[in-house]
């Protein structure tokens, strides 16, 4: 469960303070599929960084599974990311010149999982996102965009995180492959009960979620449940 209480992020630019986020409060229960929407500059990236424990808020509190994350040190944040959060990025961020399998196993390396179990766990995650076995030993830069993003989703899944954070996961994909990727998220949410937060500026992508939070100028302007598009 995620709870954000009056989160603000303030950047000091000379004399004036700039509020990237202003008094953001919401709760996300386990098993939700939430889309955070907003135009560029609305503060949705800043929010994602805080939710993903990459950054801490200037004011307010952020609880992840009941633990206060807002006051942790860099290394403690790294531990939170390692055990509780899976990231999917717009530009995939796979290791080039490394096999698909090695990319998916990478979080397990930092988590200190034994070598023998890594492969088994990684294979399970890859099957869950619909990758075929003959892709496992391809180099990551030899795959198509859609396949690449599914490898990235498998990597986000492999540590069994409490939360999967996807930052514009379809931004670099054409409509059709984007749809396949977004349906992969939907399937993970519906079938495995994964909590997913999707950051996007596209209405069509957001429609696949169960709840949409709109942000503008660092504030929530709208937060409502919607009918999930299938």
């Amino acid at each position, binding site marked *: 469960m995620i709870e954000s209480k009056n989160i603000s992020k303030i950047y000091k630019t000379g004399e004036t303070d700039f509020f990237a986020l202003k008094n953001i409060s919401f709760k996300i229960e386990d098993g939700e599929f939430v889309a955070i929407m907003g135009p560029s500059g609305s503060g949705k990236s800043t929010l994602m960084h805080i939710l993903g424990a*990459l950054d801490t808020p200037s004011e307010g509190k952020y609880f992840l599974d009941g633990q206060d994350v807002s006051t942790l040190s860099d290394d403690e944040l*790294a531990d939170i990311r390692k055990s509780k959060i899976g*990231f999917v990025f717009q530009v995939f961020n796979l290791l080039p010149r490394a096999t698909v399998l090695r990319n998916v196993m990478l979080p397990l*390396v930092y988590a*200190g999982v034994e070598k023998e179990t890594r492969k088994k766990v990684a294979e399970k995650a890859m099957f869950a996102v619909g990758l075929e076995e003959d892709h496992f030993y391809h180099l990551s830069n030899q795959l198509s965009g859609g396949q690449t993003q599914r490898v990235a989703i498998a990597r986000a899944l492999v540590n069994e995180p409490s939360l999967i954070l996807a930052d514009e996961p379809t931004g670099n994909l054409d409509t059709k492959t984007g749809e396949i990727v977004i349906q992969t998220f939907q399937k993970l949410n519906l079938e495995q009960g994964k909590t997913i937060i999707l950051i996007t500026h596209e209405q069509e992508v957001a429609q696949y979620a169960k709840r949409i939070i709109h942000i503008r100028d660092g504030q929530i302007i709208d937060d409502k449940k919607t009918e999930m598009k299938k």
Partner: protein
Amino acid sequence: MKIGDIFEETYSALSSNKIRSSLTILGIVIGIASVIILISIGQGASGSIQSNIESIGSNLIIVSPGVQRGAGTMVSSGRGSAKSLKLTDAEAIASEISGIKAVAAEVSGRYQITAKGQNTNTTVDGTVPDYATVRNLEIESGSFLSQQNIENASKVAVIGPSVRDDLFGEDVDPVGQTIKINKIQFKIIGLTKEKGGAGFGSQDDMIFIPISTAQRFLSGNEYVTSINVAAVDAESTSIVQQEITDLLLEKHNIADSTLADFSTMNQADLLSSATSITDTLTMLLGAVAGISLVVGGIGIMNMMLTSVTERTKEIGLRKAIGAKRKDINLQFFTEAVSLTFLGGAIGILMGWSVAFILTYFNILTASVSLSSVLLAFGVSTAIGIIFGYYPARRASQLNPIDALRYE
């Protein structure tokens, strides 16, 4: 992160940029190889100088005329130039000091030698039969000077192999032939065995004649140029040296030992002065090679910094999925140290084989010592640590958000 994983990451990072990695390693290879080669040449030279000195004769004490300086005058005519030692000094040493195996005075000078139209210029040493004992001389053919020769002031000569080569050609037995020293005819009665060693003080390039003959026909006076004393063993050398000094001071009526008109030197002094020269030489050579190692180290640092910049996004991703600072730090640090370690290993092999080839083909005597190998290995690893530290630290301190956004 486990050690095995770090090495796997290092291997994949270095092998994905093979050309760049190997060029960077090359800098270290050249540095380490030149350290090994130059130090081994220095130590080889040191070793051959030492064996040269030892071949002259162990337990040897050389008494030479010293600076002659009267009371109140500051004018010095230079060490060894004074005429202060006579044959009687040598006789006194032989009769009054115990623990002596042999004493041999000598009168030496350089003269022009001619034989059958060939000529050479070399050292002619007027000496006594005991000289062969004192200086470990052996006879190849014929015989060395005899007491009879001394008493009669015979015009006979024993020549060294280099002199033989110059005057008569190699592998010729010169015994029975005649040579002219300073236009005076001498009959050759012996040839010394080759001792090896080259340059200054080589006993292969010498002619020995009776000391009485040298004083009468060549130098024209009663002085000697040095007195060689062989002590019975190495331990008693310094005691004998002290006794000789005391005896001669008394004999020459000199109360203040700093005003002595002679000086004594033993094998150990010679060895230590030669060793200090070659040690300085070795250090100098090592320092020159060390500079190239530092340049190689800067190459490593340059490559690592480029690599950190290129892989900023990768560092961001690793941090996002839970890598801590120390994980990133260790990863880049291991890369740098592996590069220098590998370069060091290759460099040692290369330096070793070059030293071996130099020695094998008699170009130079080079001896690789374990200490220089350990030194080179230590230095190359230290360079990896020093020049890898900063880039690794820089990588580990990148902010994950900025790193992920980096284009």
